[in-house]
Every structure is written in C-alpha cells, then in structure tokens.
C-alpha cells in the first residue's frame, strides 16, 4: 500500500462526503465553464458573421409600428438577412443611394489621408461595390407558408461569397469558373480589392471513400484573364435579371421538406425548378426559398420595389461607416446599417453582459469556496482521531499533508471534469434561454481551465484545515481517551 492508494481507499469509503465536496466544487466549475463557453462561442459567432459580411452595408426601409415583424427564427440577430415584410424601397431610389454611397466613399478616402488621385491610395480600392437587392414575401410554397426571397443571383452570389451548394449548380451567368468547383471541397470565391478572383480551397478534403486528399495551393485568376463578363454582371448597378422559374433553397428549408436539386416547388401556384440547395450558413437564408427578383416582383405585384439592398464594398479598408452616415442623413425612409458597426455594438453589449455575469459568478464562487471550506473543515475535523492515529503510528506532518493533497487532487479532478460536462450543458441552456444565438463551440482549453479551477478550489478549501490538523498535538485529538 502507498500513501496514494491509502488516499484513494479513504475517498472510496466516504462516497457521500466526497461526493458532496465534488458537487460543491463542480457547481463553481460549471458556472465558469458555461460562461466561458458561451462567451467564446458568441464571440466566434460574431467574428464569423463579420468575416462573412465584411464591409457590407445593408439598406432597409425604416421600420415603424404596424410593420410586419422581423423574423428571428434563425436566432441570428447579427446578419444581413434580417427579414422585414410589408415595407419597400422603390428601385428608382437605388441610383440615388448609389450616388451618395460613392460620394461618401470618395470623401471618406480623402479624410483617411489622401485624394483619389493620390498614389498612396491604390486605384483598385475604388472597384465599384456589388449591390444585391432582395424582395421578401410570405407565400404558400407547396401548401405551407414560407419566406420567399427574390434575388438577382449573380449579384447575390458575390455579396454572399460564402454561399456554397450542397447540391445542384449555379447559373452559368454567375461565373464560368464557379460551376467547375466541387462544392464538397468547400472552395470559396473571394473578390479581392485588387480585382482578382481568388479561389481559396481548404488544404485537404475527404473523398467518398473516406480518404484524405490534399489540395494544391490556392488558385488565382486575374480579372483580365478570367472573365470580364463576371465583373460586368456582378459589379455596378446595371446588371440584368431574367424572368425565369429557377429556384434555390436554403439548406434547413430543403432538409425539412426533403427537397433537392432537380425537384420542383409550387410558389404561389407557380412551378419552379430547384436549381440548387445551399449549404447551411446559420442565418435566415437557411429557411428561405430564393427565386429570381424579376419573377418575384411580378408574382407578388411589387414591380419596381425591393425589400432591402446589400452593398458589398470590394476593398478591405473602404470607409463604409462614412457611407452609412451619409445615407442615413440624406435619404429619408431608409436605414443603412454597417455590419461592422453592428458587430461593434454587439461586442460592446456582450462584453458588458459578460463582465456582469462574470462578477456574479465570481461572487458566487467566492461564497461557494467558503461553503466548500466549511464542508472540508467539518469533514477533516470529524477525522481528527483518524489523523491522530496516523500520527501515532509514525506519519509525519508532511506525510499527512500528502494524504490530504492526494485526496483533494482527486476530488479536484473529478469535480473539474464533472463541472466541465455540466458547464457544456449549461452553456447550451444559457445560449437558448438568453437568446444569445451563438453556435456553441467547446474548445479544449476550457477543459483544462475547468480541471485547473476544480483542483485549485479543492486545494484552497483543504489547505488551512489540513495545515492545522497535520500539526495538531495528538493528545488533543485523543483527549477523550487519553486522560489528564
């Protein structure tokens, strides 16, 4: 038998008391773990959305009382896909919006430190933005109400460059290169500010036989050599659309209805052919049925109107915030929102909420540790005679301390693991009930933190009583047996 085995046996023979201490510590660990998980998940989600939307400006009609409610079914409150029904922007205003936008961007560049003609500002920074209009409508699709969105697919594709298809094909006019890309590879088209289209591929993928295939490096296609048609159709305000019966489906919608590319759907008594199903993006897009904008406008009698306009600036440092301010100041009836600004506000709000919750949790843990300390002290003092016996048979103070140390290391590890598991569960509950809307991700570091916290709590609680008891005079322990 060793001191470690002695400690283990001692714990096992006291399952209730050991369990109580584990439970008390695990609660503290679970609270902090869940907060940490929710915090990092929410931050990641915000960053993910920002990385997707980038320098994107969303222009919507002003929301007033009586307007149909915004759909929040996706749990995403930071997205360019917030849906508003019943309020529209006339297409005739788009040109004015574009003019003010362009002017604000130029002025913004000047404020940043130079004129457009200044060689310090690359001319490629003035690549025209991509404008993607949408028309939202509630309509009966295959007998059930759904969100039907009219889009210009060629423009939409470039604004939402993260879109990939799980089945089907993009229309030919989007980009000749696009249809040659296997969606399973997860290739991503990035329109850089230098006018190049870059196909970014992951380093590896897994084929149908389960083999890992390593892709070659990224491929770049210069704007001159790839296709000028692409730029013509994707950039500027003059792109055209056709009156077609093609439809694309959001991933969640298609999954719920069991639809795939090649199927047909009935939208407001009109038949559409499903050309493709999008991969899920954790946004409202996942629940939508996309049809051509012109078709939608005619079908829902909204010719000349759109529900929103997404503008993707094609340069990383474009002063989109300036454009947002100018648009809101100069055009009544619309609201321009910069996704970066929204993200910033959300960060600020979430940080404030996080700090508040952290303070509450730390206070709770402080009270918890005090309770744990009391439980441990009570448990140890109840073992005073056992400790006296151990000293009598030759255990030194250090050896006694080692016994307590081992016992509470084990308790700390078990509490850390239990608290971590509970924390993961609590994180999901918090995420759902507080409406945070993050995609809950559990990073390995949280497990290590949980273990460390469990061990620290356990050792903090044991240190003082163990120190006192390991040094206690044996006759004090055996006073009832050893007469004076």
């Amino acid at each position, binding site marked *: *038998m*060793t*001191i470690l085995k*002695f400690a283990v*046996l*001692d714990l*096992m*023979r*006291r399952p209730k008391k050991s369990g109580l201490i584990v439970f008390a510590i695990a609660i503290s660990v679970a609270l902090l773990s869940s907060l940490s998980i929710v915090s990092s998940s929410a931050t990641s989600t915000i960053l993910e959305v920002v990385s997707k939307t980038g320098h994107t400006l969303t222009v919507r009609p002003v929301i007033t009382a009586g307007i149909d409610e915004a759909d929040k079914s996706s749990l995403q409150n930071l997205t360019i896909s917030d849906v508003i029904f019943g309020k529209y922007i006339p297409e005739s205003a788009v040109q004015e919006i574009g003019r003010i936008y362009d002017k604000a961007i130029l002025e913004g560049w000047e404020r940043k430190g130079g004129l457009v003609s200044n060689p310090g500002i690359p001319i490629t920074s003035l690549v025209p933005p991509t404008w993607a209009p949408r028309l939202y409508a509630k309509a009966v699709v295959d007998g059930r109400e759904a969100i039907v969105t009219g889009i210009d697919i060629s423009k939409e594709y470039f604004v939402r460059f993260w879109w990939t298809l799980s089945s089907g094909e993009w229309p030919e006019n989007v980009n000749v290169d696009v249809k040659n890309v296997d969606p399973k590879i997860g290739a991503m088209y990035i329109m850089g500010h230098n006018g190049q289209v870059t196909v970014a591929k992951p380093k590896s993928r897994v084929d149908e036989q389960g083999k890992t295939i390593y892709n070659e490096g990224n491929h770049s296609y210069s704007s001159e050599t790839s296709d000028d048609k692409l730029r013509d159709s994707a950039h500027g305000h003059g792109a055209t659309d056709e009156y077609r019966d093609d439809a694309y489906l959001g991933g969640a919608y298609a999954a719920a209805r069991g639809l795939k590319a090649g199927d047909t759907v009935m939208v407001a008594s009109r038949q559409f052919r499903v050309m493709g199903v999008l991969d899920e993006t954790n946004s409202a897009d996942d629940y939508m049925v996309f049809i051509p904008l012109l078709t939608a406008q005619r079908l829902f009698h909204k010719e000349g109107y759109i529900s929103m306009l997404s503008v993707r600036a094609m340069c990383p440092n474009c002063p989109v915030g300036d454009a947002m301010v100018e648009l809101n100041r100069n055009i009544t009836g619309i609201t321009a929102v910069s996704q970066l600004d929204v993200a910033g506000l959300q960060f600020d709000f979430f940080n404030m909420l996080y700090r508040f919750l952290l303070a509450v949790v730390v206070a709770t843990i402080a009270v918890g540790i005090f309770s744990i300390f009391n439980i441990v002290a009570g448990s140890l003092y109840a073992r005073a*005679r*056992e400790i*006296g*016996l*151990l*000293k*009598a*048979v*030759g*255990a*030194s*103070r*250090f*050896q006694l301390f080692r016994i307590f140390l081992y016992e509470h290391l084990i308790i700390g590890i078990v509490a850390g693991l239990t608290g971590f598991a509970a924390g993961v569960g609590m994180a999901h509950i918090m995420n759902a009930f507080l409406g945070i809307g993050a995609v809950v991700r559990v990073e390995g570091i949280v497990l290590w933190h949980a273990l460390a916290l469990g061990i620290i709590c356990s050792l903090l609680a044991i240190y003082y009583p163990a120190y006192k008891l390991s040094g206690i*005079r*044996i*006759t004090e322990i*055996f006073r009832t*047996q*050893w*007469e*004076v």
Partner: protein
Amino acid sequence: MVSFIQTRALKKIYYLGDQRVEALKGVDLDIPSSDFVVFMGHSGSGKTTLVSTIGGLTKPTEGTVSIDGVDIWRLNDQELSVLRNRKIGFVFQSFSLLSTLNVLNNVVMPVIFNKNGRRDADISRERALSILESLDMKKKLESYPSELSGGEQRRVAIARALINNPEIILADEPTGELDIRTEQEVIDIFRMINTEYKKTIIVVSHSLTWLECAKTVVIMKDGLLYRDVADPIEALMGKVCKT
C-alpha cells in the same frame, strides 16, 4: 548506566480554561529493556499523560524522556515521527483501527510512513500475514473493523503495533470494554509478545487482571509515582506509602 527508557523530573502542566492542572509533578522513572510494566491508578492520576509523554505523543512541560539513550523531546517533528514509526507500537482502547481499511491494510498501514515502506511492501505483507496468523486473525484479512468483535479489533491493533518490529509496545487500556474471557486472551497475547519477541511492554489499565503478568507495577496518584508496592490492590485503594 542509562536505562532503556528513562524519565527525569518529568512535569506536565495543562491549562483547561483558567484552571491549571499539574498532570505530572516531576516523575523519575527507569524501565529496562524487555520489561513488562503496568501503570495503574485512579482516573486523573497522570498515568496516561506519562505514557503518552514516553511515547512521543505529549510534549512535557519540563524534564526529559530518553529511549535507548536518545532524548526524544529534542527531536524535530520528522525525527519524532520516525521514532514513533520504528521504535514504538501503539495500542489504543478505541479508534485504534481505520474504518476505511480492511484488516490487512490496517496492519500494514504504518509501513507506508516508513521511508523504505514501498521497497519492503512484500516483506511487510508477509510479516503482517504471519503476525495475524499468530493472533488467529488470518481468516479475517478482508474484513473491515465494523465487521469485527471488540476482541478481534484489539488483536488487529496489536498486530499493527508489531508490524514495524518496534522495541516498545505502548498500550492504553487495551482491554477496556472487553469481557473477562476476551480480556484474558488479549493479556495472553501481550505476555507472549513480551516473552517470545522480547518487546518492552508498557500498559495503562484499571484492570487488576494485568497484575498476574506484569514484571513491574507502577502505581500513580496525583501526578506522582508509586512503585514496588507490596500490595497493589491496597495501594489502589489509597493506602500507599510514597517511595
């Protein structure tokens, strides 16, 4: 010549609240090796304090305790722990066994605090089995203390006291709460340990049954020592002369 166990001018003063209790009032004692000493006296006479001071459990207020020529109260905590582990085996009246360990583990438990305990684990196990067999406890190796009778618990405690092969066995009321028959069995075991293993036995007891096997009887009263009395029973009744 220094005796195997020697105390000189040993005093112990306790404070219970404001009350000053002089448990030992200057005890001089010499115990030769392989002696069988029984300390007797009324409750509060100081016998347990004296024995616990000899055993390195209670630090005296004044005076010295030497074992085999070493002044044990000059040792530090670590050295004193080693002394208790190697040289002395304790048998207590109650709480003598750990409820969390079975019989075998209770017996070998002192070995884990021995510096060479891990290296000598197998030897210790064999030794424990041998001692338990000699005490007729081999069939209860896996039992826990709560499953043992009072006499069996005492035997296990004695086996544990012997595991490190100490030179001294200190026993405080080892037959307390036992019936007469079991008490006699325990006394016989102590007699066997003294005669066969040549251990120095120091027992604190109220029971007169111990007198039949004691080589030395020490009577204590009010923190002072009375010894070599002609009639211990009379001495215990209070008719003693101070030596």
